[in-house]
């Protein structure tokens, strides 16, 4: 082969690779599209698709805009978004629990919505559902709550006590081992004993909380030891499975093998669809303190990516307004039994009369807003191992509380270094 042919071969190969690189690595033109990255369960996703379709009909001026959505679980949504935003890319709208807003604000990845929406638009929302940091609003909710509630299977439970000790005695009666194999066929209660999110309500019931106003952990307290002791009693008495993560708890409850589950609004629709006759009630009061357990509450909100293509900003904001509009929020409340973030929708008589929503609201009233500061990640990670070790019997409640505090302080110091 001649030199000329060599060079031609090389150029041809180089062009192919070059084109592939340009197509693969070049910045995608996002001027004609609105992308949503969301953390929704399948039912919520179906409704989102429906609401996007309705938006298309109502807004023909955005016919040229392509709207797409991608689903992630909570953790992946956060990591994927921060990675994409590092490269000045990512979706136009990001949807998830409001606690993810804290890191996004610190890393300067999202836009303040009080500069994009009018004050009267924001005034529609429950102020506690608007994630606010540094004097700005960073997300708008389509629902608030995200709170844990006591869910009873009415096939097993006739009355739901509001006193934790009475409830405890009831759980003993409800836990039954029919075949005598040493493993109960029906457990009194099931819940995720891996994630400390499920410990927090009881911490509130014993008068504690996870951090102070300066985002310093407050975990090494008598309240924490009390909450851990209470949950350990449930396990030691065999009223709940010895090992139980979210999937197992959910499966046991759906199969009718648990009288109660502690779970959030995302699950109720699935239980009803699965034919489980459920009733909701606030987690029972702790008689020794006279306090009600206080689950963390949070909004699920949409935030706008700082790197949204300016050419698609009008369409992005129009879609955002649509997805948090009163009509959409009412639809979500009816279909999913979630509490709307819009105050007027929340006052709708048909929604007020819904027994499931009313019970949910009673629990929210006893809840406490989840801090949206980034340090919450360190708090969760500090609580998780000690919580598990305590329930496994490797640490006493007091040791676990001390361990959590020490670890939280170290992790926060590492994060702030």
């Amino acid at each position, binding site marked *: 082969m001649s030199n000329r042919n060599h*060079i031609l071969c*090389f150029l041809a190969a180089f062009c192919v690779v070059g084109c592939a690189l340009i197509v693969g690595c070049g910045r995608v033109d996002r001027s004609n599209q609105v992308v949503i990255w969301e953390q929704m369960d399948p039912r919520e996703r179906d409704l989102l698709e429906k609401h996007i379709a309705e938006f298309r009909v109502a807004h023909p001026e955005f016919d040229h805009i392509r709207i797409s959505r991608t689903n992630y679980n909570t953790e992946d949504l956060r990591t994927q978004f921060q990675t994409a935003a590092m490269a000045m890319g990512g979706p136009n709208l990001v949807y998830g629990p409001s606690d993810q807003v804290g890191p996004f604000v*610190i*890393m300067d990845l999202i836009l303040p919505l009080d500069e994009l929406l009018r004050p009267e638009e924001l005034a529609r929302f429950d102020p506690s559902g608007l994630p606010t940091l540094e004097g700005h609003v960073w997300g708008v909710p389509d629902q608030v709550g995200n709170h844990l509630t006591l869910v009873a299977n009415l096939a097993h439970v006739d009355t739901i006590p509001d006193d934790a000790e009475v409830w405890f005695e009831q759980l003993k009666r409800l836990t039954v081992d029919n075949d005598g194999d040493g493993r109960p066929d029906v457990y009194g209660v099931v819940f995720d004993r891996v994630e400390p999110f499920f410990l927090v309500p009881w911490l509130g019931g014993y008068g504690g909380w996870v951090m102070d106003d300066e985002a310093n952990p407050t975990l090494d307290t008598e309240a924490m030891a009390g909450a851990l002791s209470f949950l350990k009693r449930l396990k030691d008495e065999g009223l709940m*499975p010895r090992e139980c993560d979210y999937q197992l708890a959910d499966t046991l409850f759906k199969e009718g093998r648990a009288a109660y589950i502690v779970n959030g609004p995302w699950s109720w629709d699935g239980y009803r669809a699965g034919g489980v006759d459920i009733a909701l009630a606030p987690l029972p009061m702790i008689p020794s303190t006279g306090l009600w357990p206080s689950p963390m509450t949070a909004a699920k909100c949409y935030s706008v990516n700082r790197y949204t293509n300016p050419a698609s900003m009008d369409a992005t904001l129009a879609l955002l307004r649509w997805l948090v509009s009163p009509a959409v929020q009412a639809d979500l409340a009816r279909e999913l039994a979630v509490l709307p973030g819009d105050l007027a929708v929340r006052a709708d008589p048909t929604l007020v009369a819904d027994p499931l929503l009313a019970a949910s609201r009673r629990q929210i009233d006893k809840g406490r807003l989840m801090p949206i500061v980034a340090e919450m990640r360190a708090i969760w*990670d500090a609580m998780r*191992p000690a919580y*598990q070790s305590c329930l496994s019997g490797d640490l006493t409640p007091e040791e676990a509380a001390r361990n959590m505090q020490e670890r939280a302080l170290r992790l926060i110091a590492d*994060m702030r270094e």
Partner: protein
Amino acid sequence: MLESRVNRLALWFLAPTAVVLLLVVAYPFIYNVGMSFTNWNMYHFRDPSFNGLANYFKLFQEPEFKNIFLRTFLWTGVNLVFHVTLGLGAALLLNQRLPGRPLYRALLILPWAMPQYISALTWRGMFNLEYGAVNLLLAKFGIDAVPWLSGEWTAFAAATLTNIWLGFPFIMVVALGGLQSIPVELYEAARIDGAGPIRRFFSITLPMLRPVLTPAIVLGTIWTFNNLNVIWLVTKQGEPADKSHILVTFVYKAAFTYYRYGYAAAFSVFIFLTLFGIVKIYQRSQAEEAF
């Protein structure tokens, strides 16, 4: 003259690939090394500054560093031993004239063909204390239920078992290909000379397999050392109490849970250098054996 031209032509054809590799491998690698000398984290996301070797010092001061480092070697070693032993054993069996051989082959390749994510989560379910298949099976033999996912070493064992199941088909497929390329005449000659099956295995099979097994073992070492999925999913992010981490899962958590990008980058450089050293030592030992 002709040979030199052919070589030059080969170089021209390799050049575009080299450019791609430079862009997708060398550039991120150099970027990562640069990142490891900065204080890049959540609070310095926009304005990271040079902090010298601070991240490297922190790495060695990490209280869990020694445990994680040793656990990573244990993880890699145990997995590799089982991958090679089981893989080679299965390949030798499948190389025989067996009834239903294609079916066995398909079944044995199945773990490799399944998405790792699904396998890992399925195995996690199978290790549940009360409802998991593993403990139910142990109960049939009168063995008490093992809290697989609650203990430091049992969780590690659960992840290791999962990864052994996932990984041995790779060695099996490679070894099977190698076995089928060994001339039958060699075995016939050895048989005539009176060599038994063990002698034939060590004098013919193993030496003839070395050219295919060496790169497979090197790859297996790298993949196992850097296997994030299995540990992350089976032990649910290093549980219990972050006691089942290996180096890569620890780095992932530092970067994406705690936003410590500079620190995680330094850790990644350390992992690269460790792996590089292992592979070099292994290659050198293989080269010496060959001579």
